[in-house]
């Protein structure tokens, strides 16, 4: 087993375990923290695949900004294990079974996917570097880039409309 395989398994177990903990934890704050751990694991995967830019941006955007917001809101609302609404046991079971079934189905379907044996390039390959990404982003993908600014603008206006006091 090469070191990259060991790393892969380590990160995967970390990601899956912490993702499971996200949905198992009673306390919302714990959920957030486990999710952050998941993001770290995923970022680790990115870096392993030499997608450095995405790995770091994942940390900055998801772990650093989005999850802080989540934590912020949860803390402001003072949510904790006691106030956590509990779903009916059967409904919960049903949810888990549904998720599990979907997993089974998808895995079974993709078990013999056409690209199954293709290799993923791990350490080499420059496409994940900021230089390459940037040059493609600002040439071929400049239109969606600009359009995403509209998206942000609308989200901003929206958040202001919703959050504004007074009416």
């Amino acid at each position, binding site marked *: 087993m090469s070191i990259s395989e060991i790393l892969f398994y380590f990160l995967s177990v970390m990601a899956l375990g912490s993702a499971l903990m996200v949905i198992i934890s009673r306390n919302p704050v714990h959920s957030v923290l486990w999710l952050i751990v998941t993001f770290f694991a995923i970022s680790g995967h990115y870096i392993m695949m030499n997608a450095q830019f995405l790995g770091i941006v994942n940390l900055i955007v998801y772990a650093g900004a989005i999850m802080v917001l989540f934590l912020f809101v949860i803390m402001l609302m003072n949510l904790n294990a006691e106030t956590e609404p509990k779903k009916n046991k059967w409904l919960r079971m049903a949810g888990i079974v549904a998720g599990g079934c979907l997993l089974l189905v998808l895995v079974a*379907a993709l078990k013999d996917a*056409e690209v199954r044996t293709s290799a993923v390039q791990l350490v080499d390959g420059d496409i994940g570097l900021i230089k390459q990404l940037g040059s493609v982003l600002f040439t071929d*993908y400049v239109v969606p880039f600009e359009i995403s600014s509209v998206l942000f*603008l*609308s989200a901003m206006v929206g958040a202001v*409309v919703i959050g504004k006091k007074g009416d």
Partner: protein
Amino acid sequence: MNAIVISAIWGVVMMFSGIFSKNNAVIRGTAVTGLALLIVVNCLELDGTSLFKVNVHGLLYFNSFSLLFNTIAFGSTLLFTLLSGRDMERVGRSTPDYFALIFFILCGVSISSSFNSLLMLFLGIEIMSIPLYILTGTDKRNLKSNEASLKYFLMGSFSTGLMLMGIALIYGAKGGFGLDVIRFGTTELTPMISAGLLLLLVSMSFKVSAAPFHFWTPDVYDGAPTVFTSFMATVIKAAGFIAFLRLFDDAFGDLHPKWQLIVAVVTAATLVIGNITAVFQQSVKRMLAYSSIAQAGFMMFALVALNETGKQGLLFYTAAYSVATIGVFAVLIKMKDYTFEGFNGLAKRQPVLAATTAVFLLSLAGIPGTAGFMAKFYMLTAAVSNGHVLWLVIVGILCAAISVYYYFRVIQAMYFKDGEAQVAEVSGTFKFLLVVMAAIVVLLGIFPQWLLDKLYFFLI
């Protein structure tokens, strides 16, 4: 490209209009100007004049189909603004922001009608959805509105997640996001493609509220401020369908026989569930919500059939459906009581409102002589000419008959029952506009070629 750029710019203009003017009439006027401008530039592009020379690198593809739909969407929005713009001001104080959001939505609409890459589809749908989540929740003190907004948001993002997974799987199989890349050489349902296709189907069904992924729709439509429900149920839904059709036509067209049955089943479920549940509603608003699901079922005929007739028909259907629904909602907003009983005796108090509403409802029910009939006719023709789904046609017919029941309940209440319908003040302009819209509905019903000619010659 014209429409995308101008609508984004005008959204910003609307944002600032609130700073420069506190007068709602001015703001509304700005919005109307913007919409008119949008229609003009869009028609210019239809004519071949592109104002912005942007190299889209194959991510967008403008053809007359998408541009014509844009025109229809902008036109519907214009009608909507003219009719209900004043009511928008009653929802909350940030009228300019609402208009700004609507313009951003229109930007999203024009993107999702002309995407040529799954990336643009994703962005377009998100730009449409995110402002809508907000608009749904603008009635901030109203718990129903809050709930609707939250529900819509959670459902919307959930379906986005599904869609992205679908996109990822398809990317894995084909190595690209362009519709042409995906279409090229895709004749077999390999595991990855079929999984991706299914996920995309499910998520798009979520977006257009096709059964069994429709359950959020009634609550959301019911909870949202009625003005925005009107917009949501028409322009947005139509845009969703256009995107749906474009995706499945351009990317998976060659696989059509493979997925036709499943889409047909979804369609049938949508029709049956939408119509039957609509029958049991007590509130007209909820009824219209369910009826929009039912109408979605008819629009899905285009997808099932996937032929030229279906495409033309879908465009015509969106126009007919949007105009009629906007009209009905505009009247509904003016009512004090949203139950069927609230409409009792409207014909005596407000004959113009009642008559025009009746025309709109007849159109929704698909009575000949109205645009709704021609729309349904096109859909049925498309499905029949496809030849594989005649059972679906029969289901459609029966459901159309059921739909008569609930549409006519309103007509019955307005005309045949006695009561004191409580109506807010309506202006002469409002009535005039309603009459104009009713005239459009009837004229399109009798002379559909006024729209279809255009369609035909652009499509050929």
